[in-house]
């Protein structure tokens, strides 16, 4: 089972395979749909067929009469809203009164089998009076538009207006001022595991056991207690294996609450598996975004001012919307040193499935626009795109204009690394026709330093248990959704105690065993849970050192713990093995339990202005990408020949996993750049399958060369920061720059599909002909 691991990410050290990897490669890993569910009822949801309307009649009596149907529920069964943000919970698990998007759940059935459930759904009589529906932000914001939510004038969920620094003076000082308006299509997470939940209500004890695909079981626990009006103590949350998330499961999803409602109504166990089409309808992903950006630049490439307007087509309900629109503005800061930034953001309600958080939450489309525009301005000023970035580097430690803390900053080294590795200086401008090189930068938070449900608790808690068998068991609520967080916890504990990794076990995500955790979102786990794990292991080490010191009759500060052995520094006594010290420590004490915590200090929690907490973090990851493309002018197909990416993750706790995360993030960005796009026909999703929604296949995915940069954040666990999201946002602008380099065409729209490219090429030829004929005529 041992192998020669190759060093990862151009570091001198390898990583380790995931501690749950064997379960995954053998098929033993049990995801929600694989859980034991003998005797469980099958849950199915009836979805509304119109984009916007008033429910006139919902008659479920015939469905209830079907033999084998155990429960039928509607909006009447839950009059409480749910949502991720306490300030904007405006969605019911099953619609009440109004429906606001096509596919919104209106009723649900639990039956003995899928066919019976489907038959029962077909007998439900639903009558809806249609209302005008809006599929674009502009239409929804029109003065005479009908309101989706009565309390939200102009169908605006939130308007954000932030200004920092003197923008007028900034533009006055600029040598070049340019604008761009860029449209990014809505995309979807498309995690390969479809949504599923298994709810088991025991009528004898009044307890609910919930297993689900959630990235944040704690939110789901809260919302189940709220919507089912159950005491939190009666609910048991267990996390199975989770087949990816990327933000899809950060919010509580309505179907999860519906499954629990059905289980209680049926007084039993219900398994709900959503189809792929239903997963697309559930959505909660990156919104269609129009970004209008104006930048001022000095002749040497220094940015003097930034004015940015972002309009996000948010869909029918609030979800994460307020945070998404705040992130778009907040993360204009923190990558470069810009003296003045004005931001106006508009989150708009439309009659489409609700958007939410997706990898690079909120920041991606604004960053794309920003990088694209500075690339164009660099060209106009005849500056190298690398030089423009270098002219705007931050000096750390610093606080940004909007009060974000930056203590470590490896962007300069990222630039160096990919510039050299890609042969940028030698090759740029000298590639054969149809080929191009482009570059861009990006960054992302290592965890939101202000949790959504602010309770005053630490940001992370890890418990360690050590017993007579010598195993250190780490108990964490942090959900491993494939990113390798359980392995990270194991490494953090093993490294602190200098033990072999096999000596540490991780139990995660069981509310009866593991401490509460805020979950897998905003790339928080490595920084926060990693630090809590180190804190716990340090406390455990202290206990063991004291036990060894007693035995050696030496002061604890003279005891060294290394390589699984305890010894007196400069002493002559034979060292004690770990197992012996554990037995000594257990005398009079028994099983040892310690707790480690991590809390983000107030100075890391963002600005004091309204919405200022969004963007606040302990540290940012930084990334640079260089992309090489070939463009086939006949077919419009774009081949990404190679990607060079450097990411500053502070310190790579597991270089193998860090490299894997970077590759995945870069690749996901290329999907958004080249092929991924949701499409609705009068609100009907026309993309809702993995054939229509074009996730890149292996055939068209590029080789990715990863360089890990380590800036050693002073507060990070072993100096680490996040590695999963920061690289994504550079993919699209680097690609657009490469296409511009190859073809001379500037794209203002994503994705750049072959038909859009062909259209642009035809237009370019038409203009060239026109220009030639004009010259000939004159």
């Amino acid at each position, binding site marked *: 089972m041992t192998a020669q691991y190759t060093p990862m990410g151009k570091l001198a050290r390898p990583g380790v395979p995931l501690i749950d990897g064997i379960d995954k490669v053998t*098929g033993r890993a049990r*995801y929600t749909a694989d859980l034991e569910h003998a005797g469980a009822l099958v849950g199915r949801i009836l979805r509304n067929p119109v984009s916007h309307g008033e429910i006139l009649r919902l008659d479920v009596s015939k469905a209830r009469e079907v033999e084998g149907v155990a429960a039928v529920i509607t909006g009447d069964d839950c009059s409480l809203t749910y949502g991720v943000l306490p300030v904007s919970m405006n969605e019911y698990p099953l619609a009440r009164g109004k429906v606001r998007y096509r596919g919104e759940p209106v009723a649900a059935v639990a039956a003995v089998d899928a066919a019976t459930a489907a038959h029962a759904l077909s007998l439900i009589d639903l009558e809806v009076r249609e209302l005008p529906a809006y599929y674009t932000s502009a239409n929804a914001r029109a003065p005479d538009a009908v309101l989706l939510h009565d309390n939200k004038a102009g169908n605006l969920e939130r308007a954000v207006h932030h200004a920092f620094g003197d923008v007028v003076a900034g533009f006055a000082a600029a040598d070049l001022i340019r604008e761009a308006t860029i449209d990014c299509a809505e995309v979807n997470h498309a995690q*390969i595991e479809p949504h599923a939940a298994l709810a088991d209500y025991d009528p004898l004890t009044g307890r609910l056991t919930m297993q689900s695909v959630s990235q944040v079981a704690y939110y789901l626990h809260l919302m189940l207690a709220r919507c089912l009006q159950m005491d939190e103590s009666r609910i048991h949350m267990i996390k199975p294996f989770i*087949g990816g998330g990327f933000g899809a499961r950060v919010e509580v999803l309505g179907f999860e609450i519906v499954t629990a409602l059905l289980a209680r109504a049926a007084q039993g166990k219900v398994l709900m598996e959503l189809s792929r089409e239903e997963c697309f309808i559930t959505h909660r992903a990156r919104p269609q975004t129009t970004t209008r950006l104006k930048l001022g630049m000095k002749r040497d490439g220094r940015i003097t001012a930034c004015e940015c307007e972002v309009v996000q087509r948010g869909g029918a309900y609030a979800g994460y919307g307020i945070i998404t629109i705040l992130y778009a503005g907040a993360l204009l800061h923190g990558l470069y040193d810009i003296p003045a930034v004005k931001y106006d953001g508009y989150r708009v309600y439309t009659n489409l499935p609700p958007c939410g958080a997706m990898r690079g939450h909120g920041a991606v489309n604004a960053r794309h626009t920003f990088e694209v525009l500075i690339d164009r301005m660099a060209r106009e000023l005849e500056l190298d795109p690398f030089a423009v970035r270098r002219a705007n580097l931050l000096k750390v430690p610093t606080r940004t204009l909007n009060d974000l803390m930056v203590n470590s900053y490896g962007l300069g080294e990222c630039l160096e690394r990919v510039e050299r590795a890609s042969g940028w200086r030698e090759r740029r401008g000298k590639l054969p026709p149809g080929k191009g090189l482009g570059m861009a930068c990006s960054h992302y938070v290592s965890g939101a330093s202000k949790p959504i449900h602010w309770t005053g608790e630490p940001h992370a808690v890890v418990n360690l248990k050590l017993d007579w068998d010598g195993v250190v068991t780490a108990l964490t609520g942090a959900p491993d959704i494939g990113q390798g967080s359980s392995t990270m916890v194991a490494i953090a504990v093993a490294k602190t105690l200098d033990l072999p990794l096999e000596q540490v076990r991780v139990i995660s995500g069981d509310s009866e065993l593991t401490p509460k955790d805020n979950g897998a979102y905003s790339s928080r786990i490595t920084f926060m849970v990693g630090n809590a794990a180190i804190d716990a292991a340090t406390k455990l080490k202290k206990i063991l050192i004291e036990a060894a010191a007693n035995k050696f009759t030496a002061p604890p500060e003279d005891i060294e713990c290394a390589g699984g052995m305890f010894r007196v520094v400069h002493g002559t006594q034979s060292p004690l093995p770990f197992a012996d010290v554990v037995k000594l420590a257990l005398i009079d004490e028994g099983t040892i339990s310690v707790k480690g915590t991590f809390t983000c200090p107030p100075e890391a929690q963002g600005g004091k202005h309204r919405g200022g907490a969004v963007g606040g973090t302990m540290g940012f990851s930084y990334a640079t990408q260089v992309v090489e493309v070939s463009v086939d002018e006949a077919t419009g197909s774009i081949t990404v020949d190679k990607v060079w990416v450097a990411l500053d993750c502070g310190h790579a706790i597991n270089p193998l996993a860090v490299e894997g995360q970077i590759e995945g993030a870069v690749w996901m960005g290329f999907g958004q750049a080249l092929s991924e796009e949701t499409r609705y026909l009068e609100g009907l999703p026309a993309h809702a399958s993995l054939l229509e929604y074009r996730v890149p296949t*292996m055939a068209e995915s590029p080789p990715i060369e990863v360089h890990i940069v380590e800036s050693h954040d002073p507060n990070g666990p072993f100096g680490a920061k996040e590695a999963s999201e920061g690289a994504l946002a550079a993919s699209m602008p680097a690609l657009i720059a490469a296409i511009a380099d190859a073809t001379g065409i500037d794209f203002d729209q994503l994705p750049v599909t072959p038909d859009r490219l062909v259209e642009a090429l035809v237009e370019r030829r038409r203009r060239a002909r026109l220009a030639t004929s004009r010259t000939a005529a004159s």
Partner: protein
Amino acid sequence: MQDRPPPTKRIVRTRLNGRWREDAIADNLLLVNYLRETAGLTGTKTGCDGGECGACAVLVDGVAVPSCITLAVRCEGRSVETIEGLANGGRLHRLQLAFHERLGTQCGFCTPGMIMAAEALLRRNPHPSDADIRQALSGNLCRCTGYVKIIESVHAAADATP
């Protein structure tokens, strides 16, 4: 469904992971559901609404097929291999080892199908090129890895002794 007659069933004999078995199988039962529900082998996954993602790939007579669009009754008298049948003698199969050690798996949901499709490739082409791998596995979607380490894993497995 309770108030309609159930579909007819027939006795079907298949060689599942090397062992012959007989089951009463409804004519409309999909192979993926036979494997997961009748045989209890949940390693084979459903990731889409039919033939889109490759997560359900299994081998039928050595050929990778999407079990979510294959009828179980079509496997009468044939050999069916799933992820659960790969490791034997207390050792991981070379593809499993490579995917584990080289992080060809992240969330793991596409992994069983990916490994079975790769196994079919290696049986017919023991030393595939990058292009061969990309072509053979292009029907298997992964959302975590960007495929880089999957391709590396397949190469590593091909280089290892079977």
